[in-house]
């Protein structure tokens, strides 16, 4: 990122002239608005920002941002974005993907971008369905889901995106949802501030092919009982009067408890900086389905070596050790002889 003073921008500066072509009522609109509103706050310039996407409804996103962008091919956005960021560590690179794009056809690229800790902000729009191809089940669809390709119900066990990310050694892992712009913006801001690969799962409603999938958790009426807001350094509490909480039992597992039953000091204090990912992993798997209390916020946010910087450091170190590259020296480097 540039240390130079960046001109003040507004939402308009980040909005392209292209007509937005998602279905009316799609959750993607809320995410787009959250991002376009947030960008001026980040103190970065549109010309130094790149959005790379794969294929799917969410992947149309770059067309609507007045930045540099590439709408690439199915599943490959993390790989292409790795190329952009490795060539140009000075840029802010965002990856827009979905549950099919990022976890099915592109699963390999996603886990390796996270493992390498490439400085990318990866937003995964999870609607648990294939929308652009008109309604097949996705790798995050629940077992039994009836779709066009599973008329008798899906028999595939789904991925938990956060478990995948944590298992892939992600250094920043968060979850938010499309109905809460402020929460999205706080989460994206933290993802942007993180040096390394930031993975954000966004619960996103597909009102055409999978309407209301997350209503049991994210609708206003459900939120108090079902949404668990994670805050670093704070006990993990929820409920309209914070009367419930998460406790680590003597068995090592996490349990949802009544605070009155165990006492506040038994409630787990959230530590997103914990080097060990096991508690974040347990939190990510706290909810068994979309009808049980579900944590939101930043699960993990640790510092470790960032890939593009390490690559650049080696280029610099080689130049310092060997001097700038010289072709004549290179061509003679395997030994030469002279013919007169």
């Amino acid at each position, binding site marked *: 990122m540039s240390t130079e003073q960046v001109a003040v921008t507004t939402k308009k500066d980040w909005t392209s002239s*292209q007509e937005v072509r998602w279905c009316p009522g799609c959750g993607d609109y809320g995410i787009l608005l959250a991002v376009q509103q947030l960008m001026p706050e980040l103190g970065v310039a549109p010309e130094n920002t790149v959005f790379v996407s794969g294929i799917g409804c969410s992947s149309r996103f770059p067309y609507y941002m007045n930045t540099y962008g590439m709408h690439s*091919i199915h599943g490959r956005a993390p790989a292409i974005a*790795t*190329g952009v960021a490795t060539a140009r560590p000075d*840029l802010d690179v965002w990856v827009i993907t979905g549950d099919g794009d990022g976890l099915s056809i592109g699963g390999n690229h996603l886990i390796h971008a996270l493992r390498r800790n490439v400085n990318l902000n990866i937003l995964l729009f999870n609607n648990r369905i294939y929308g652009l191809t008109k309604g097949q089940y996705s790798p995050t669809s629940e077992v039994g889901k009836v779709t066009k390709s599973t008329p008798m119900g899906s028999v595939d066990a789904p991925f938990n995106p956060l478990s995948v990310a944590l298992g892939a050694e992600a250094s920043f892992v968060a979850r938010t949802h499309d109905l809460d712009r402020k929460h999205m913006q706080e989460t994206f801001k933290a993802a942007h501030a993180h040096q390394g690969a930031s993975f954000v799962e966004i619960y996103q409603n597909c009102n055409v092919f999978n309407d209301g999938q997350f209503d049991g958790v994210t609708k206003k009426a459900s939120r108090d009982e079902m949404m668990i807001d994670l805050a670093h350094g704070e006990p993990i509490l929820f409920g309209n009067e914070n009367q419930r909480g998460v406790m680590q039992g003597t068995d090592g597992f996490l349990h949802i408890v009544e605070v009155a039953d165990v006492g506040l000091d038994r409630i787990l204090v959230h530590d997103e900086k914990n080097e060990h990912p096991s508690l974040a992993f347990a939190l990510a798997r706290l909810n068994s389905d979309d009808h049980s209390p579900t944590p939101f916020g930043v699960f993990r946010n640790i510092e470790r070596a960032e890939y593009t910087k390490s690559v650049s450091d080696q280029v610099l170190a*080689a130049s310092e050790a060997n001097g700038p*590259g010289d072709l004549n020296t*290179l061509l003679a480097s395997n030994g030469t002889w002279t013919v007169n």
Partner: protein
Amino acid sequence: MTDTIDRSNTADHDRVLDHLVVRFAGDSGDGMQLTGDRFTSVSASFGNDLSTLPDFPAEIRAPAGTVNGVSAFQVNIADHEITTPGDDPNVLVAMNAAALKADLHRLQPGGTLIINEDSFGERDLEKAGYVTEYGPNSEPINPLEDDSLNGYRVLRVPMTTLTKQVCEPLGIKPRDAERSKNFFALGLVSWMYTRPVEPTEEWIGKKFAKNKQVAAANKAAFRAGFNFGETTEAVGHRYEVRPATLPAGTYTSITGNTALSWGLVAAGQLAKLPITLGSYPITPASDILHELSKHKQFGIRTVQAEDEIAAVGVALGASFAGHLGITTTSGPGVALKSETISLAIAIELPMLIIDIQRGGPSTGLPTKTEASDLNLALYGRHGESPLPVIASYSPAHCFHAAIEAARIALKYRTPVILLSDGYLANGSEPWKLPDVGSLPDISVPFTTEPNHVTADGTEDFWPYLRDPETLARPWAIPGTPGLMHRVGGLEKADGTGNIDYTPENHEHMTELRAAKVAAVAADIPPTEVSGDLDADVLVLGWGSTWAAIDAAVQRRRRAGVKVAKAHITHLSPLPPDLGDLLRRYERVILPELNRGQLAHHLRGTYLIDITSVSKVQGLPFKSREIEDAIDTAVTNLSDDQRGATS
């Protein structure tokens, strides 16, 4: 080869050969590649022209002592300019029974066999398949004791025993000492063919500097082999291959993969662009990844990606960001990259895809050469997806081919496929170093200013507003204020680059993408024809067949046969003069290490007949095979075809 000249006339004078083909063969663990490489380097610095053919199995260590585990290195050294590693070795060094079994048939009749007789015990013979019959009743047969080697000059040497003996006073255990026996062989061959000793001793010291004991053992074995030649009468005369009269200049010995790597480094310098290489390890291309990883001081970033698809994705992302994006692979990798290459065609960005071809389909023959990815390169993508394809024809030419590929990619903003193959990749030849100052400037400017004014007078940027001559679109990279734009796989309107699905636009864009690639033809120099320009028969070639074609045409012409040859580097688009050139000849022969892929393409393109000469054995052509094809073509000419070429 039959034209070896024995120029000696006195018994005590060293005999002079005009060329010599030596094949070192042994077990995969015997260090044959190292030995051959060392013999090559010494001969190169001595001033011989040379050409090499490493020939090794796909397994890192196939079962020891078996024919499948034999690793060989063939080198042709000469006192004149040569292009091939030689059809049939004059000398075969067989370090064990399996090597003899595997390679004896290659040795020319009457050739010299240098055999490590310590590796011909019963177990060795059984493992090598020297048995009366397979099964419980099989008995070993020792080829050293029957008459099967009668047609050769056989030199039996107890190399393992002698190596252990010289190492013993150095305090080296026999098992460790045994590993130096390849240096004994190298020493003996160095004596027999009058190679200088000092460079190899010096090299051993450097190469094994970290392990003094190994260095000492190798030096002792090398010296012992050399002395064995000098003191043992059975070895007979020394022979000499005098330096070739090559054009004056500074030379280095180079393999195709090293030349290609250096060509890529040079391309970055000449384009004034940093390089980002995305690559996934694959034989026989991995050495390019290794080599480029060593030269970071040229601003080169290498990403060993998670798979072939990611590797090309990294390259394309880097190109979008303003680097020269490169990916290196072999056929199976190109297949995986196909979708991303089509994206690069759609978004019109420069990128290099380097395919070091090997035998296919599927894993096929990973360590053996073939040129069967031509169809894949020309046609192997979905949709109408033309791109430029060029092919290198010799190890050293890989350097220039890499620069040419980059030049086209940058000038026309297109992915370019560069074809090399396993034979060029691992084969080596002396290379007269080019004058770096004479290499072309291939840089292209980034677009930094708006290129269009809207009706209301505001300036904006149209990412698909083309250069009228090259049809290249502007390359505006992230970080450039005011030129923010989106590219992608959806069809774009020419000019604005906005998504456009209209029928007329798609047809227009399809034609434009084809016209852009066709425009590259304007840069292709006239096709050179050599040999007898007025011959009736032309041998056309592409890729690594160049060496065998060159040798074959030279020899047929020396034998009085009129024949011409031409070799093309640009396979898409084809050289603009090629159709007319081919039509001038009564018969065009096209040798290919595939089943006639270019022949098929040319027949379709020019509606003329081509005689395809095909070989798919994982090995380069022998000159003799092409000579036979020339003779057949000449013999089969009808009377009215004969002499009809104008």
